[in-house]
């Protein structure tokens, strides 16, 4: 589980959200465990039932104006009631000034308050985006990740099956490499994003040759930082008796971080041109997304033909 302290949140977004600390710096040590944001409007008005205290509390102009309209004692009691819960932090938008009482209670109860110059809406969405990305699940896979005709293809298979060599052939044909051998995959709601696990150069290891700097050798257009993962292609050593899909009607799926993507196993044997097959898989995927499925239409045509033959037979 990734950890995020209020201090980290502040430091990482200081310039982007134009943040400044209001409460004492030692109130910024709390851990943020919930990736959602709450606007505590109802709680400020005295309704504390179901108050999601473990979320970051975002105060906009409405909240601040409302607070300032309350008599001093009432404001103190309401804020104290809210802040008695273990709130991670308050963020006030639009650079609005925080009521003195609020700052006082926050320092006393050890709760961070910061202000942002951004508008409430903008801050809400950008903060949500940041938190989603920060808390998203990730996994590293032993695989090479390429982008072919806009389709993100994760190449998997045992060591020595030819993942890197296939990637090299694809680069030669003008496609792009995202990562070789180790791919970091993050889930972003319904999609998977694959990237290099370290932010270094795009290096490929070719057996017998050693390391190759892809961007320097093939040009910057041959590499890319990240791409959506559309499907997985598993390279399997050709075995005499192993069954491989012949019709293409079975839609095999695999799940990465709980998200299902199609998986296709292709046999690899010396002299077989794997990169062409991978290009074909990519183009077939695009056609399928447009509703054109050769396997399906072959199946339908065959069924029609059999039906015709049956009718002819019955007439005889």
């Amino acid at each position: 589980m990734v950890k995020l302290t209020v201090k980290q949140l502040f430091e990482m977004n200081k310039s982007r959200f134009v943040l400044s600390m209001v409460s004492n710096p030692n109130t910024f040590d709390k851990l943020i465990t919930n990736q959602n944001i709450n606007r505590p409007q109802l709680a400020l008005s005295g309704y504390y039932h179901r108050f999601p205290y473990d979320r970051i509390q975002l105060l906009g102009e409405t909240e601040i104006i409302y607070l300032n309209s309350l008599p001093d004692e009432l404001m103190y009691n309401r804020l104290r009631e809210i802040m008695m819960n273990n709130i991670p932090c308050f963020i006030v938008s639009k650079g609005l000034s925080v009521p003195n009482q609020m700052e006082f209670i926050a320092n006393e109860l050890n709760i961070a308050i910061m202000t942002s110059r951004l508008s409430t809406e903008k801050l809400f969405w950008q903060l949500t985006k940041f938190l989603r990305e920060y808390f998203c699940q990730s996994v590293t896979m032993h695989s090479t990740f390429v982008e072919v005709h806009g389709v993100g293809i994760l190449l998997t298979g045992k060591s020595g099956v030819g993942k890197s060599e296939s990637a090299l052939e694809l680069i030669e044909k003008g496609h792009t490499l995202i990562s070789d051998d180790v791919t970091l995959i993050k889930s972003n709601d319904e999609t998977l994003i694959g990237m290099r696990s370290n932010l270094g150069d795009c290096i490929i290891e070719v057996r017998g040759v050693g390391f190759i700097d892809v961007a320097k050798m093939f040009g910057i257009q041959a590499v890319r930082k990240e791409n959506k993962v559309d499907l997985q292609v598993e390279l399997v050593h050709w075995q005499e008796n192993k069954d491989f899909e012949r019709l293409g009607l079975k839609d095999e799926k695999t799940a990465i971080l709980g998200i299902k993507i199609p998986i296709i196993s292709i046999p690899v044997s010396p002299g077989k041109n794997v990169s062409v097959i991978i290009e074909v898989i990519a183009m077939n995927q695009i056609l399928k997304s447009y509703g054109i499925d050769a396997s399906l239409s072959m199946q339908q045509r065959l069924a029609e033909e059999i039906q015709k033959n049956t009718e002819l037979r019955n007439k005889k």
Partner: protein
Amino acid sequence: MLKKVIIVQNKLGLHARPCSLLVKAAGKFRSEFQIRKEKMEVNGKSILGVMMLAAEYGSELELVFDGVDEEEAMETIVNLIESCFGEE
């Protein structure tokens, strides 16, 4: 060389699924395998070929096997067709 005439017994005929089962089974043998239906003759290891037959229920197929494991191959293929590919 072995020859055998067999009648397609499953109601739907040799549609996509049986074709793929037939081709997969045939691919495991080293013998040559041809299928004849009326005037057509196709390679039994080729999915497109077998589909081209569009063999309906009740149609007659002549199976021709030729090679070192032809007997075994014939037994397997005949069993598969007679078992209606696990269909009706």
